[in-house]
């Protein structure tokens, strides 16, 4: 390998992009040629000076500028046709269900003792037919128990 060809390969050698078949020949030339060796060393040290510039983060305004320019950037258009219809329907149904539960079930949960009293009262009324039952009988004992005796 002559110096003219070797000089063309210095850049490739420094970038570790030398084809394997050329590498050995080039290194042999470099070992025997002080001029090419010096040239390679000069270029290597110069490239070391050219540092990688700092990473720069994209500013937040860039995101907004891009978003503004995107065609059809309308979320409702991206949804299937039935979604804008079903969403309000489900929301209304959920509201009605919540209202129903609030009106009917929550008072029962909050005041369970009064409900029990209602049931007991109705039980008393239903069991009034056993008022004449003998006190020693099961029915008599039950009516006494319910009556709070």
């Amino acid at each position, binding site marked *: 390998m002559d110096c003219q060809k070797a000089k063309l390969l210095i850049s490739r050698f420094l970038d570790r*992009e030398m084809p394997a078949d050329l590498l050995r020949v080039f290194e042999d030339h470099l070992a025997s040629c002080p001029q090419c060796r010096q040239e390679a060393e000069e270029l290597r040290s110069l490239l070391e000076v050219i540092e990688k510039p700092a990473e720069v983060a994209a*500013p937040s305004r860039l995101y907004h500028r891009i978003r503004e320019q995107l065609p059809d950037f309308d979320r409702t258009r991206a949804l299937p046709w039935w979604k804008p219809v079903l969403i309000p329907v489900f929301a209304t149904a959920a509201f009605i269900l919540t209202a129903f539960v609030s009106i009917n079930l929550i008072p029962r949960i909050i005041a369970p003792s009064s409900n029990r009293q209602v049931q007991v009262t109705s039980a008393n009324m239903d069991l009034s037919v056993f008022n004449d039952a003998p006190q020693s009988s099961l029915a008599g004992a039950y009516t006494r128990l319910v009556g709070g005796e």
Partner: protein
Amino acid sequence: MAYRYTGSYADAEEISQDVFLKVYKKAASFRQEARFTTWLYRITVNTCLNFKRRQKIPVESLDSLQEPGPGFMEPAGPASEKPEEIFRRRKKAELIRQALDQLPPKQRIAFIMSKFEGYSYDDISKVLGINTNAIAALMHRAKEQLKKVLQPYRLKGEL
């Protein structure tokens, strides 16, 4: 990439915006044959190559004053850096930016991708659509040009 290519924060923003819009519009045409990054770089490189600088004198918009970026490429220094060291580092960065600016567009792209972004000649060849021997030639000429411009500053101890 756009910032390293232009050396201008405002120009890099404009290029980035164009790139993202192109990616959005062309997403359907992306074929799985190439890696996404290669495809993205190809769009970025083409946008950079087609980008024409509006003016030589930088004009700062009110937006850029509110959210300033670095004026030119400079590696970050340590927190305890002295003022003269900051000045020296910035001067060095400016000399390098000017030297890069003098490179023809394709040489600049190849050099940035290889030196700063760590891409192989093979990857760069896929992005630029030329073979690896042509990339090697671009790199050789880019380094020769940088050496020609920067070596005098090195000899004077300014770099």
